[in-house]
Structures are given as structure tokens and as C-alpha cells.
């Protein structure tokens, strides 16, 4: 690794130094192609983000691909219903590695305002891992851009080797997840327990609150 200060000094002299990892990550983060895939209200804001005013093309991400085979990034923009969930998981499985997921909006994170619904999936992270969560209902286009930049930072920090290397460089890591089936009352399974664990939260004034202490 070249020292950061030395690198800056050298670049002033016209000598550019880089590492394979930097170059590799730079290439990946600068041409993230999202999947052309809108679910609900958030999709309209996602479209607005790609339009002239917010101009997502500045981040190299205006190329929305209709096919999952050509996409690097899935923006889950809207409510995932139970009827739609198997298709979303299947699309995710069809995307080639390296692939990233942004859960856009309250519905994709947790079911949002529709959480009480019998046909609403309470968060897409029950079936596959999510990299960036954007709260909001719907999030403003600026929020999506911010999520985008966060994702780019995340990609920049990924290491090519070592135990912390990303999933696509690890032959043992799973990149496909089970597709739920339609059951008689609910999806089967209702969540992928290898990916998702029920969160432990403190509900004030309850027994779990005391036991947590």
C-alpha cells in the first residue's frame, strides 16, 4: 500500500500510482447498472432521479437494464407484496455477481405504512441481503442519490483478498437464495432464516426490556 500523502505528492509531480484493488473497485463503482424494475410509488421517484433535474447519469448509473442478466444493482423501489416476493427473489437470483441491493423506501425496508397488510412482505431483507436502506415514503431523489454514493463508498472499500473479501470473490459464499412458494395462507417459508433473524428491540416497559438489562 502506498502512503496516502506520498501518493498525493507524487500525483502533483505527474506520477500516478494505483493498486489493482483501487482500479478494480473504481471500474465497478463507476458503472453500476440498475435493474429496470419499479414496484410502487418509489419507482416514480426513482424515474424522477434519472431525469434531467437529478441526473443519475452523473454516477454512471443511468443505464437501466430490463434484464436481470445485465444488471449489477437492484433498487427495490416500493412495496413488495407476498404475491410479488417470489418473483423479486427470482430476479435477484438471476442477476450475476457482483450484485448489490438498495431497499428504497419504508415498504421495502419493513412493510412501511402497509405493515399490517396480510399480503405485504415485511421487508425484502427476509429473503436476501440488502446493502443500503433508504428511509422515506417515498424517499426524495436526493436520498436515492445519497444511497447511491454510499454504495459507491462501500464498493470502494471492498478488498480483493482476505477473509473480508466480498461475496463474489468467495467461492464458498452463496449467491442464490431460496425462492418462496405460494402456500394456502402465507408464503412458504415466510422468511429465509439463514439471511434474516428477528430483530431484538427494546419495547419500553415490557418484560423483554427488563430481561435485556
Amino acid at each position: 500500500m502506498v502512503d496516502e500523502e506520498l501518493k498525493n505528492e507524487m500525483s502533483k509531480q505527474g506520477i500516478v500510482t494505483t493498486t489493482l484493488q483501487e482500479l478494480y473497485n473504481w471500474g465497478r463503482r463507476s458503472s453500476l447498472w440498475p435493474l429496470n424494475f419499479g414496484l410502487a410509488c418509489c419507482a416514480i421517484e426513482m424515474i424522477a432521479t434519472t431525469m434531467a433535474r437529478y441526473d443519475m447519469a452523473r454516477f454512471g448509473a443511468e443505464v437501466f437494464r430490463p434484464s436481470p442478466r445485465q444488471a449489477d444493482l437492484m433498487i427495490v423501489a416500493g412495496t413488495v407484496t407476498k404475491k410479488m416476493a417470489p418473483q423479486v427473489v427470482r430476479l435477484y437470483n438471476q442477476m450475476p455477481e457482483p450484485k448489490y441491493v438498495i431497499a428504497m423506501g419504508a415498504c421495502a425496508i419493513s412493510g412501511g405504512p402497509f405493515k399490517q397488510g396480510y399480503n405485504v412482505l415485511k421487508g425484502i431483507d427476509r429473503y436476501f441481503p440488502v446493502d443500503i436502506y433508504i428511509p422515506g415514503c417515498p424517499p426524495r431523489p436526493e436520498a436515492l442519490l445519497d444511497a447511491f454514493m454510499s454504495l459507491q463508498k462501500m464498493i470502494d472499500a471492498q478488498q480483493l483478498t482476505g477473509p473480508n473479501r466480498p461475496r463474489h470473490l468467495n467461492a464458498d459464499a452463496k449467491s442464490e437464495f431460496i425462492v418462496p412458494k405460494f402456500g394456502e395462507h402465507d408464503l412458504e417459508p415466510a422468511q429465509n432464516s439463514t439471511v434474516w433473524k428477528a430483530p431484538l428491540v427494546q419495547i419500553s416497559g415490557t418484560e423483554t426490556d427488563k430481561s435485556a438489562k
Partner: protein
Amino acid sequence: MNLENIKSEIEANVPGCQLEFVLNPSPSAQHSLRLDHAHAVAVATYLRDAADLRFDFCSNVTGIDWPAKELTEKVKVKKLVDGEEKEVEEVRKTTIPGTLEVVYHLFSVEKKHGPITLRMSTKDRETEVHMPSLTPVWRSAEFQEREIFDLFGVVFDGHPDLRRLLMWPDFIDHPMRRDYVAPDDFEYEPTAHDAVLQRANQHQSEAIAKLASEAEGK
């Protein structure tokens, strides 16, 4: 457009039909007519085709679930108590049987009047859930009746393509019924109280127990 007049007009023109005037006490004053199953299609066709009515636009079709309800009322009864006639209060329980109701809202594009409201009820909520479909009269009822079939479980006789509309085909419940129990699949609420709090606590203790058993296993 007075609904009483329309009612007598239909009764004069569709022989044998039994119509019931249903009063709506709210300020909207949209009263309705309850149709009998046997003459529903004939009455609907008459409403659509009669030259002075021309209700050619069936706007809204929806279901309402009325589960069986128990009414308790206190009645004063005169009884012989110890050889003496006394007024005694008695609690009487009457059960109103449950029913599934379907409501149609009609307008007239040609005459620009409306709405009038038609309703039909099933005999009960479990087995006798059949009802004549009005799709042959108004196409707009097609998808809406499918939706009612899906969410309420009313079976429309004479519907051309009665399948579930919104839920998947293997789904067996009727979620818009009042006694439907949704899958228990969310863990906590940020501001839980009452029943939700109880459920949140139960989920939390289950999750903690699971964590503990996993730790033991390791």
C-alpha cells in the same frame, strides 16, 4: 329521481320480483333496493334498458361482510311470581344470522342521473354463498365480482370467468371477511400497545429463547 317511484315502476314491469327498500339514515340519503336472487338479472336488465331510467353505467360493485351478531335486550315481562302478577326484567338474546352482502352503484350516462344502489345478500356466510352475477348486464361488474369472490368468498352464478383476482390461486382464505386472521409475521411495532404489545412481547421472548438455544448448541 325518487327511489320509491323507481321501485314501484320496477314492480309493475318485472312481475314477481320482490324488492325491499333499505333506508339510509346518514346525511348522504343514498337509499337502496334489496333484490331477490331469482329476479335480480331481470330487474337489472330493466333498469338498464327502460327508456326513462337507462342506468347503463354500473360504477361500483363491492361486498360487505356481516358476521352473525348477538343482540341482547332487556325486556319487561309480566309474570306470575308467588301468585302475584309482577313486572320482571328479562334478558333476551336474539341472533342475527351472518350474511355476505353485495352492493351495486348505478349511474346513467345517457340521462346523467344517479346513483341508485342495489344490494343482494347471501343466505349465510359458510355454505349458501351463491348469488346471481350481474356481469351479463354490465361488463364493468366482471373484475369487481371476481374481486368479491376472492376477498369475501361470494360465488357468482353466471359469471364468465370466476377466478381469484388479487390473491394467488392456491390461497384459500377470504381476507376481507371480518373474522379473517392474518399470518402472524411481524415482530414488533415502535409504539406497541394492547394486543400488539402482547404479540410483540411474545415474539421477543420467542426470539430470545431461540438465541439461547442456539448459544447452547454451540
